[in-house]
Structures are given as structure tokens and as C-alpha cells.
């Protein structure tokens, strides 16, 4: 009886621990003269955000920042299901952030510094975008030495079809079942163009390798293991280009999906004042070129979109909820799997 009770307790504890969202890293940045604590949950790497937090603390020396890094799905889970206490949620998954706001887990911030921001960069005064990050094709110098890389999806499909022996097992893309970014890009592709499914079919026939993260894809492209990787996070690729040789970044000419990294203040935030200050800081951080360079995060900049008309920022709105629908997601993944895994 005692043993059973203890076992039950242990089981309960274990199940709670299992239920708790996955934390990849947790860093505390103490304040010069501590007055308040700002708890940020984020999907952005430590390297990217450390300079931003340092610059923020230089402006607001009284704020201690606790920075928790997790995945997009875990972040959603933490806020929506586990009522974890955070003041700011920063995520690259626009769809999940939209769902959080739509389902009432975000609070309004009506006085945000959105004057210089385009209208598409915020939603409901709850979600605020501060970066624009395109999904790009990364190609290996070993396979495309003279800049003859494909410039559109149709060209890519034709190239892969004509040279199956060359690309067999040498192309990579996101495993959309694991990666929120990959899923968002794939679903937007499927919405934008019919050629997406053809491309998946072709990739499936060539035994495409599936990845969890942009970093791994870039590594394998750079060392020549892969000829190309599709739908890689462009901002990450650009920041890698400084230190890693052997790959090129191609922005397609037909269209380029642009993901917006966003911040929202959870409904349960105990310190929305500092969270608001941090959002305002993020919304204008693009005016500081050194900071943009240090973080490797491209700030919102409508003029870039004017120069390259193929860039297409993903729009906020209820449309983003469609691919989060349980049945729709299952069906999409079923289609995707049947395209990529052809036995």
C-alpha cells in the first residue's frame, strides 16, 4: 500500500516533469542597480539576443533580464497550457504567436512605437514584428561554382529532374513535422504556388535529407555533403556566411516568403511595463546598425521590400490559424509524407 502510494507520487512528479515545457537554455543578465525583473521566453539563440539585451540594459539599467530559450512549440505550450510566468514571448513562429493572441493569451500594448513600422508588422496591438527574415535556398560552391544556381522554383524542379544522379541524396530541407519554421514555410509555399507539391515529389524521389535546424543544413551544404538546401532561414545563413565558406544564398525570383519574428506580452505577465519598454526597444533597434550587425537579426525595413518585389512578408491574421487546425495539419503532413517518402 505504501509502495503503491509512493509509486503514484513518483509517477505524478514524473508526469508533471514530462508535461513541463522543454528549456534549452536559461541565462540571467543581472542589472547594474536592480529594480525589476524582465522574464523573456524566446526562440532566438543566445548569440543573437545577447547584444540586444546588453543594449537594452544600457538604456534601462534597473532591469534584470532572465532569458529562457526554448522551441516554438514549447513556447506556445508554456504560455497557453502551463501558465508559465513570463513577461515577454519572442518567437519566430508567427502562426503560433497569432494563435496565442487569438485565443486570448496576449495583452494589449496600445502605445507601442509603431509609427515608423508598416501596417503589416503588427496585429491587434498584441503581436509586434521586429525582424523580417526570408526563407532562402542555400547552394554549395562545389556544385554551383559559377553562379549558375537556379533562380526560381520551376528552374530548381527542372534542374533536379534533369540530373537525378547528381542530386540523389544530396538535397536537404526542413522536417516540417519537427520544425515550426519549416512547417510555416511549407504551408505558405503550398498556399502560394502549385509547384510546391511538385518540388516535394521531386525531392522525395531524390531521397531528400530532412533537418531540424537551419544550422545543420548550412553546415552540410558548406562542407559539400549537400548540393542545396531549400527553405533555410536567410538571416541565419547570412550571419554564418562571415565565418563559413563554401555556400551561396539564393533568394528566388518568383517569390520569397518572409518570416517576421515577433514579440508579445503574455496575459499573465507580472511586469508588462518593462515588457513594453523592451518591445519599444525592439521596434527601433533597426535604427542602430551596429546592433543589427551584432545580433544578425535583420530589422523591419520596408525599403528592402520595395527593392526586391519578390519578398513577401507573411501576413498576420486568422489565415495563419488555418494550418494549425488539427485535421488540416494532419492532412498536410500526410500529403507531405506521401510526397517525400516514396517506397
Amino acid at each position: 500500500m505504501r509502495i503503491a502510494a509512493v509509486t503514484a507520487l513518483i509517477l505524478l512528479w514524473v508526469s508533471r516533469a514530462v508535461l513541463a515545457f522543454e528549456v534549452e537554455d536559461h541565462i540571467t543578465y543581472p542589472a547594474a542597480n536592480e529594480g525589476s525583473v524582465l522574464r523573456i521566453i524566446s526562440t532566438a539563440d543566445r548569440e543573437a539576443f545577447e547584444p540586444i539585451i546588453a543594449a537594452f540594459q544600457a538604456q534601462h539599467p534597473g532591469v534584470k533580464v532572465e532569458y529562457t530559450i526554448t522551441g516554438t512549440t514549447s513556447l506556445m505550450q508554456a504560455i497557453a497550457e502551463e501558465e508559465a510566468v513570463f513577461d515577454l514571448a519572442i518567437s519566430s513562429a508567427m502562426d503560433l504567436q497569432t494563435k496565442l493572441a487569438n485565443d486570448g493569451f496576449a495583452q494589449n500594448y496600445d502605445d507601442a512605437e509603431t509609427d515608423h513600422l508598416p501596417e503589416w508588422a503588427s496585429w491587434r496591438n498584441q503581436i509586434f514584428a521586429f525582424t523580417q527574415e526570408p526563407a532562402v535556398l542555400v547552394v554549395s560552391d562545389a556544385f554551383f561554382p559559377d553562379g549558375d544556381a537556379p533562380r526560381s522554383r520551376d528552374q530548381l524542379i527542372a534542374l533536379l529532374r534533369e540530373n537525378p544522379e547528381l542530386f540523389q541524396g544530396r538535397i536537404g530541407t526542413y522536417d516540417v513535422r519537427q520544425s515550426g519554421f519549416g512547417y510555416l514555410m511549407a504551408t505558405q509555399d503550398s498556399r502560394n504556388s502549385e509547384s510546391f507539391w511538385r518540388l516535394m515529389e521531386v525531392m522525395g524521389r531524390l531521397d531528400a535529407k530532412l533537418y531540424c535546424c537551419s544550422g545543420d543544413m548550412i553546415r552540410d551544404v558548406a562542407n559539400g555533403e549537400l548540393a542545396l538546401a531549400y527553405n533555410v532561414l536567410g538571416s541565419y545563413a547570412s550571419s554564418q556566411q562571415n565565418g563559413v565558406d563554401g555556400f551561396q544564398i539564393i533568394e528566388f525570383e518568383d517569390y520569397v516568403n518572409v518570416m517576421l519574428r515577433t514579440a508579445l506580452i503574455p496575459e499573465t505577465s507580472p511586469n508588462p511595463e518593462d515588457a513594453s519598454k523592451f518591445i519599444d526597444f525592439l521596434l527601433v533597434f533597426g535604427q542602430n546598425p551596429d546592433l543589427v550587425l551584432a545580433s544578425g537579426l535583420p530589422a523591419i525595413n520596408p525599403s528592402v521590400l520595395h527593392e526586391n518585389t519578390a519578398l513577401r512578408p507573411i501576413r498576420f491574421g486568422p489565415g495563419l490559424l488555418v494550418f494549425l487546425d488539427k485535421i488540416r495539419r494532419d492532412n498536410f503532413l500526410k500529403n507531405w509524407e506521401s510526397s517525400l517518402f516514396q517506397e
Partner: protein
Amino acid sequence: MKFHASIRRRLFFQLAGVAALLSLTFFFVVRGVAERAAEGTQDQVLAASAIAMADSLRNEGGGVTLDLPYSSLSMLGTVGQDRVFYRVAVSGQTLTGYDDLPVPTALPQPGEPVFETLMFRGDEIRSVTLLRPMGSEANRAQAFVTVAQTREGLETISRRITTLATGIGAGFFVLATALSLWAAGSALAPINRLTGAVTRRGPKDLRPVTAETPRELLPLVEALNSFMGRLRASLLRTEDFIAEAAHRVRTPLATVRAQAEVTHLKLRKPEHKQAIREMIRAIDESARSAGQMLDHAMVTFRADSLLREELDLNAVVEETCDRLDPTADLKDIVIHRDLPDHAVSFQGDRILLQAAVMNILDNAIKYSPADSDITVSVVEGAETSIAVTDEGRGFADTDLSRLVSRYKRGANVGDVVGSGLGLTIAADVAQVHGGRLSISSNKEGPGACVSLLLPR
């Protein structure tokens, strides 16, 4: 007279009240219509979204499934940035969507969506539910598609419409009020014109009012004219009566005086002579009063249609002095004439002016002591002044302005017989010529100075 609230104010407040009422009505009508239109738009979009979802329902493997069409939710983002909720339920089981979304109280019939406004997750939402029969013939199933949206966008639109309607309503009211002010003024302009025409009249002007009269005021003006006509007739009759009476008294008086003088010569006893002398003096005073009454009636009569002939005031004064010299001689009074060398021209009624100067001079003689001087001077300045200065008793403390009233006499003249009409006549003559009578004390010693001031 009882004062009642001004017509203008009443008119203005009534018009402004009507404008306020209309503005308010306008505000509510505009807001009502616009909000209903906005609500209708939201309902239509919701219905379109639900239909798109229902259309994507399909039978699969004995069950029902759907691929949520992208447009079904994205179209809801076109109106505003509202939160959206949806649920697809088959045979009471939630297939997909928010399974806590409330079921409508009234179940929809095929082709007839049910709209509801209710609370969900702390917000007011508008929801539409429609029914789509599914399944094979053997295995029928009812699929309910519910799509709901918060109403923040609608509230924003409603606020904007309210602001706009308020602005337009307020603007309309301000404009209408300004116009009311103008209209009230403009409606009363004829009355003001008429009032002006009546108040501008002199105190003796009893002619009928001929100013332009609005039809509504015609009875009033006619009544006024008729009243003034009666008053004028009555005044004329009174003057006529006085003149007639004076005339009738004067002639027998002359006869009585002549008889009294004859009797005076015949009497021997001094006390009898004295009595007769008293009688003659009384008769003279009566004749003089009758003369003045005649003069007064004449002034009133001639003033109505003043004759303006070119005349020389010197001559008028000279002539009048000549006529009164004998009377003055009786009291050993000398009348000095202080006149300019040249003619003093004036446009007026010779007879009236003579009567005026005569009465002033006559007064002066009457109130001067025997063996004194009277000076009559004509001076040309801003006004032409005909001044008569005597060395008599002056006016003592009498209120000078009262002296020109009819039958009012000085406070210190109880011992002298007089009618009190003399200065009234002079003042009336001055007035009909556009001038005035000035009465003051003699600046050089005792006595009075009475001046007839005429415009040049």
C-alpha cells in the same frame, strides 16, 4: 406696460430647439443605419466563412472530414483584426476547432444560418452556425459549422461613425443656430423699421404712420393711426375752442374798456376813479391773456404746415420793438436795440417769429420795474440768437426748464397778473424752426435774459 420675453429671443430659442431636436434625430438615425450596415457586413462575412467551411466537408471512410479552406478564416481578417473562433461538429462530436464554442440555442435548419451575439472567453462575439447534412443514405449525420468573431472592429467602426455623426450633428446644430439667429433678426426687421419710424417722430407729430408695414402688423398700425387721428382731432378742437373763446372774449372786453374809460373821465370821487382804474387794468390783463391764447393757438396751427419764407431777423425784431415801444413808455422803460448793421437772413414764418419776440419782450416789460432798460440784441454765432435782457426781478429759484410749459409761471410773480403762456409760445416757435429757447439770469446785474436760438 408689462414686459414680456423678447420675440426675437423666443423665436431664436424655438428655432434652435427645433435644430437641436433635428440634430439629435439625425445623429441617432445615422448611427443606427450605419451600425446596422456594419453589423450586416460582419454577418455576411461570417456566413461566407461558414459556407466555405461547410463546402469543404466530405465523407471519408464512413466518417466526415474537411480540409479547412485557407480563405474561410483569412477572409475574416479583411474586416478588422478581430479574434476568430470556429467549430465543426458532426453528430454532437467536435471534429475540429474550439470545442468550448457554445452551441446556438436555436438549432439551424439547412440553408438557414443562425446568428447569435454572446460572450465567449471574456469577449462579446458574433457567431453564425449552419447545418449541413452529411453521410451516406444509410448513415446520415448532421454537421454543424460555427464561425464566430469578436466585435472589436465593429466597435471601432461604431466609434468612428458615432464621432462622425456627432461632428456632423453638432456642426448642423451650430449652423442651424447661427441661421436661427439671423432668421430671428431678419423676421423682426420690419418691426424694428416700424418702431424706428414711430420713435423718430417729434412729440407733436400726429400724422398717420406710413412706413412699410408687414401684413401681420397692419391692424396694430391702423389702430395706432386711428388713435392718433382721434387725438389730433381732439387737440385741434381744443385749440379751436380756446381761440374761439379768446376771440369772443376780446371784442366785448374792448367795448367794456372803452366804456370804463369814459366812465373814468366822468367820475369825480377819487375812490371811484381808483376802482375804475383797477377795472381797466384787469380788463387789459384779460385782453392780453386772450391775445396770448390766440397766439398759442395760432402757433399750433401754423406749425403744422410751417411757412419758410426768406426774411430779415433785424427787421422782425425792429418791427416788434416799435410795436411795443408805446407799452414800454407807459412804464418809462427804454427798449435798446443792439442789432448788426447788415440784414440777418433766416428762413421761417414771419408771423410766428414776431409772436415769439413779442411775447418775450412783453414778458420783460411786464416784469421790469418802471424807469429801467431792456436790451434786445441779435447775435450771429453757431446759432442766431435773439436775446432780450431786462433789469427786472429775474426768475429767482424757479426751475427754468418748467417755465416753458404751458400755464407755468415763475415762483416770484404772484403779484403780477399773467397767463403763463408767453414763454411757451416762444419755445414752441423756436422748436418748429429747429431751434430752442434759452432762459438764464442777466449776467450784468439783476434781471433775466431770454434768448431765442435759431439754427443758421
